[in-house]
């Protein structure tokens, strides 16, 4: 990385880090539950996914707001930071649509629910990866 990029590294606030990281296992859990439902037709798996997704939305939603506020307040506008924000935004929007798709009764949610869960989980992983690499905690060490 260039010296300029180095200079733009700020520590990721611990709370922001927790919010960001927490969304990943929730969306991943939803994905695994969707896979289990699609394989077994056991509705309880779908109920699990239906609760895990709003959980992921709460954490990623607050992380998104936090990142937005920081972007405005700290004028931290490196390309990667904006990309991080866009990834988080995409995660949240598709995650929200995924929650609505999961509210369709029984198998009516399939296969869209599974497809969206794959995409949302991938986006959440990418956003978290990018968030932690560009806004590295303990920067300068």
């Amino acid at each position, binding site marked *: 990385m260039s010296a300029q990029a180095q200079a733009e590294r700020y520590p990721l606030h611990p709370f922001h880090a927790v919010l960001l990281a927490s969304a990943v296992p929730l969306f991943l859990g939803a994905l695994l539950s969707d896979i289990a439902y699609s394989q077994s037709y056991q509705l309880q798996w779908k109920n699990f996914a239906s609760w895990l997704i709003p959980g992921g939305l709460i954490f990623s939603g607050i992380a998104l707001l936090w990142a937005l506020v920081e972007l405005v307040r700290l004028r931290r506008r490196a390309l990667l930071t904006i990309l991080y924000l866009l990834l988080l935004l995409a995660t949240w929007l598709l995650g929200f649509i995924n929650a609505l*798709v999961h509210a369709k009764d*029984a198998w009516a949610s399939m296969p869209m629910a599974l497809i969206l869960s794959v995409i949302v989980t991938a986006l959440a992983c990418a956003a978290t990866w990018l968030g932690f690499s560009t806004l590295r905690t303990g920067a300068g060490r």
Partner: protein
Amino acid sequence: MRKPLALLPAAALLGLLAACGDASDQQLYGQNPDLPDPHRGLFPTMEIARPGEWGDRRPTVPEGYTITAIATDLQIPRQTLVLPGGDILVAEGRGGGAPRLNPKDVIAGIIKAKGTTSVAGGNRLTLLRDADGDGTYETRTIFAEDLNAPYGLALVGNHLFVANQDALVRFDYRPGQTRASGPPIKITDLPSEINHHWTKSLAASPDGRFLYVGIGSNSNITERGMTAEVDRAMIWQVDAETGAHRPYATGLRNPTALAIQPGTGQLWAAVNERDEIGPNLVPDYITSVREGAFYGWPYSYWGQNVDKRVRPQDPEKVASAIRPDYALGSHVAALGLDFSVPAMGSRFAQGVFVGEHGSWNRDPPVGYKVVFVPFLNGRPAGPPVDFVSGFRDEDGTTRGRPVGVTVDPRGALIVADDLSNTIWRVTAPAASATGNTPPEETRTGAPQER
């Protein structure tokens, strides 16, 4: 309340909402209703009744007919029974309480509750008496209490059968009685686990040997899992003496009202079909109930139209599914059914009355009225005719929601209204003019002309 879910912070998503199909050229009722392709947007269509007061208003009835509120301030009246002496029994209560398994259950439950009464269910039977036959039911007693969401009622000789949400019970009854002489005797338990559709409808065979109990499904379309549907979505035949029971007909999603056709002794049912696949799917219906028949739920609807929301599928069951007799229209929520008598006036002499509670999953809404389906040669013939309407205004203000309908052989229709907690009585022209006619005379007399 219009599209409440659209308040969610996703204005951009609104474009993805289901576009309502144009229903103007579609056949919505009768023997061969049009069945459009299933469709659902990201949000289910929700158009919930907004409760209002009756004030001086009254429901609309055909010209010459009279409607009066014969009992108000009840505790959620559902079904009624006209006893031989003319007394009326009212079953009051609210059952259900199925667990909310996912976020949708929580949100939809809150929204739908806005369209119902806030009164607590009475869990009782109220008796109404018009001793002098002037059309005013001046005596009101609590016939029985501490029941569990009573719904279906049937009288066989000196036995009064009540279908609670969890058991079929029996009271002794003698004419003139205003209070039960003791606690009821249990005939048999009824399926009550979860009780998503909790109402247990009831009818007695003409010889009184059997009782038929309608048991609704435990979900809209198996979203609580297949195992929740054991002993659900069917009509039981119960031995009145022993309580022994067996499925009489299956695949009936929610058989909310049962009635025996006079003359033939044939069992008929009003059935509520599945939601969330479009404004004109799936038609609620009335049908003569064929013993041993499978009517489709959950695997298929209106015969053999496969419902792809159900997994695992069952092609064999689909192949065996038969079509019901007569579509009332999708989402009308038929909750009451009774056969008419000549004393109801010539226009309404032959056919059935159907109480339609009204839709939540359709915009524009449907139901919220009592219709008459004319019969010819014992079969439905012709479109449904409004008999009692005016429960809901164009702006969504809803003053009442009809449930049970019961024909008084003296020439009146008793309508239970579970939103305004009222019992309405609609009298035929001749009957209202001679309101004090004893029941024996009108029953043996010639059919009255309007």
